[in-house]
């Protein structure tokens, strides 16, 4: 039996790319991960108390971790519920409600040691039964969009008063990373006796904050300090007020007008202007994010590989990034972001060339182009700019694009119902292992989203994805993912547009704020000066 405290070995690649990202950003004069991390360590002069006012773009619709992949939900519920492992701001897997695990020789049985002294917000202690209940719930809920992450688990059992044993059907390389996903967060067994719907209105978790009377799509939500939190002395804040403002501009105004202490999704165009404001801090965090143009293969024109390739060739990603991201992002190539483990810089992507695109389109069933619609989240400035650029560039090869801007909720529900021709959205790998992104975007049957709702279904690619899941040798895994990336670049189910950082603006009063590459930020270390 081999014991792993932390699989930091395999994190090296991430750190390297992360460092590249940080270096690039630091060159632009923006505080990056390292300085923020240093600040967190300097704890001597922490101010306690106060309410953090945080304006976010998307209101949560549910607090159920197992039934969402929407940022508005995730970044709210992860303050209330916690998993056994988490991803640190540096992108490292960090033991959280578990202190470590052992794994059997056949790599099919994992035994987790639970952290002692962890209590739920109702004061009851965390037990192995709670862990078994929560992960069983997440993995068996077929409607859960991320239940595929727990695909390998065959059963879970409580062992003694502080251990949980997981049995896998086969060796599963991303396992601990999967366990760190928010969907595997821990809640009291049987919802502490409440009904499921009542529980998620008044949730009980081990996280630093709690809330009561949750309503979906509210204009704001208040999280209160969890007095029983297991990290002594934390959280520093008394409360967090999340305000949901879907309009980019209004959010900017609120931070400029000091009405809030932090905002998310700062438009790249505003970064330089905000930097000149001495009462504000703009921070760019390296991400496992790629912005994608997704094409609906249920429609005959996008089922045509030539059309998809032509579109990939027609979109000038260098120009797009130059115009729309103001130096904050890198142009898209592979569907894996460069910071993600196993990204292959040598991926043979389709280069921008209008004449090549025309030639490709000529080979398709639509040699003279066609008219189509591009669905976007209309509240986000960046998508509007992207959409107008794409509209213009596709016009050059005879594809006439009509824009269809919707508000965030309608946008999400439209593409999830396949009610779209093309749409632009971001894809984030929430956890440290790239399998999530590979499965989610490529595994039509088991990836939880019919290949990001594109309906792309390539059996050879899918089998490569499956092979990578059970491959523990990093070098061999890297090769598998390189093959996947090459195949996807040629099949062109998406256009990877760019790799942006997460951009936040915070007041200078705010300390200890850090975002991990999966886009999650924890607030127990945050304090207001």
């Amino acid at each position, binding site marked *: 039996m081999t014991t792993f405290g932390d699989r930091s070995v395999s994190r090296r690649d991430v750190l390297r790319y992360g460092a590249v990202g940080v270096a690039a950003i630091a060159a632009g004069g923006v505080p990056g991960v390292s300085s923020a991390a240093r600040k967190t360590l300097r704890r001597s002069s922490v101010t306690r108390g106060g309410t953090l006012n945080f304006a976010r773009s998307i209101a949560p619709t549910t607090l159920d971790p197992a039934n969402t992949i929407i940022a508005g939900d995730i970044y709210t519920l992860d303050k209330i519920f916690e998993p056994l492992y988490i991803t640190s701001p540096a992108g490292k897997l960090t033991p959280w409600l578990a202190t470590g695990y052992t794994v059997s020789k056949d790599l099919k049985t994992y035994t987790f040691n639970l952290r002692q002294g962890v209590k739920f917000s109702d004061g009851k202690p965390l037990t192995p039964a709670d862990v078994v209940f929560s992960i069983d719930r997440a993995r068996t809920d077929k409607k859960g969009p991320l239940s595929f992450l727990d695909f390998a688990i065959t059963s879970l059992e409580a062992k003694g008063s502080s251990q949980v044993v997981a049995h896998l059907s086969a060796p599963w390389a991303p396992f601990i990373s999967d366990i760190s996903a928010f969907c595997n967060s821990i809640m009291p067994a049987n919802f502490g006796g409440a009904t499921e719907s009542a529980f998620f209105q008044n949730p009980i978790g081990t996280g630093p904050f709690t809330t009561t009377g949750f309503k979906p799509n509210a204009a704001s939500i208040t999280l209160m300090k969890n007095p029983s939190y297991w990290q002594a002395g934390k959280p520093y804040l008394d409360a967090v007020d999340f305000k949901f403002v879907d309009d*980019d*501009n209004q959010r900017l105004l609120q931070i400029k007008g000091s009405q809030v202490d932090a905002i998310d999704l700062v*438009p790249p*165009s*505003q970064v*330089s*202007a905000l930097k000149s404001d001495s009462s504000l801090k703009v921070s760019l965090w390296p991400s496992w994010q790629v912005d994608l143009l997704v094409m609906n293969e249920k429609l005959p024109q996008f089922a045509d590989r030539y059309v998809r390739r032509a579109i990939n060739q027609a979109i*000038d990603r260098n*120009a*797009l990034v*130059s*115009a729309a991201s103001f130096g904050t992002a890198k142009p898209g190539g592979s569907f894996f972001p460069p910071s993600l483990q196993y990204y292959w810089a040598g991926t043979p992507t389709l280069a921008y060339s209008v004449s090549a695109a025309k030639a490709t389109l000529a080979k398709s069933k639509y040699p003279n182009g066609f008219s189509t619609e591009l669905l976007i989240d*209309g509240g986000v*400035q960046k998508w*509007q*700019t992207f*959409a*107008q*650029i794409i*509209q*213009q560039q596709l016009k050059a090869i005879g594809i006439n694009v*009509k*824009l269809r*801007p919707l508000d965030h909720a309608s946008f999400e529900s439209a593409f999830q119902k396949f009610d779209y021709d093309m749409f632009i959205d971001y894809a984030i790998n929430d956890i440290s292992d790239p399998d999530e992104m590979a499965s989610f975007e490529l595994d039509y049957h088991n990836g939880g989203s019919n290949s990001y709702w594109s309906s792309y279904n390539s059996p050879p690619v899918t089998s490569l994805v499956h092979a990578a899941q059970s491959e523990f040798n990093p070098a061999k895994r890297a090769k598998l993912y390189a093959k996947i990336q090459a195949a996807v670049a040629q099949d062109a189910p998406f256009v990877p547009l760019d790799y942006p950082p997460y951009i936040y603006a915070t007041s200078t009063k705010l300390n200890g704020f850090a975002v991990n590459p999966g886009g999650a930020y924890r607030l127990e270390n945050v304090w207001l000066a």
Partner: protein
Amino acid sequence: MSLTVDLTEPFVPTSGSGFWRRALKSRSLVAGTIIIGLIALAAVLAPVISPYPPDQQDLFHVLGGFSSRHLLGTDELGRDELSRLTYAARTDLKVGFLAIVFPFLFGTFIGTVAGYYGGILDTITMRIVEVVMAFPFYVLVIGLVFIVGTGVRGIYIAFAVADWVVYARAVRSTTLVVRELDYIAAARAGGLSDLRILGRHVLPNTITQGIVYAMSDIVLVIVAVVTLGYLGLGVQPPTADWGAMISSGQDFLTTKWTLSTFPGIAVAVTALGLSLIGDGLSDVLRPS
């Protein structure tokens, strides 16, 4: 439109002889005509005088300042601001004028007929007018655009439904006055057909009132189109329109304020020109 401008007292316009003489003497009419004439000329000649196509992007030169290549700079997609402004004049003037054609014709007709015949026809018409007017203008227009779809077509339909009532109401009250004039009474007594009286004697009087109101109405239509553009319900990109330009330029208010200010000024100047024409016309047509 449910904004009510100076329409409380109906007036009987005078037309015919001396109109042009008085028109030329009206300073506001002449000034307004020159302003709108110039804007319309720029709009019509947009393809000739614009240095660039309005949607030609130069993604490596976005948010450019004033230069000899781009007199008014470039926008967030590197498009030439001057070209977009002139093309936007084309869009907005066209939409503004076309959107009021139906309300103007239909409202004037209905108002004249209801006022002339009176009775049950008048009562029913006025009740319908009141019902339509009960819906706040923007609520009605936004709702209608939502139902029939965004874009120019939605704007036309929405204005057709919402805007005719103002013309109908104003023209009706004028008709009530005109109807009582001696020469109309004489014409009726003389056995002229209603159709002939309406066509030859009443309409020529009421239609001028409609025209005067139409001038300020075009302003309100353009403002409404601009507002719909702000809400994302108006003219759809990449078509240049002042409203969309104002609202997308709003994102760069602190870094490049000209992007939303120039189209704003364009709207204001157009409004000024049309209002001057409206004021001037009502002075000229209103007997002193």
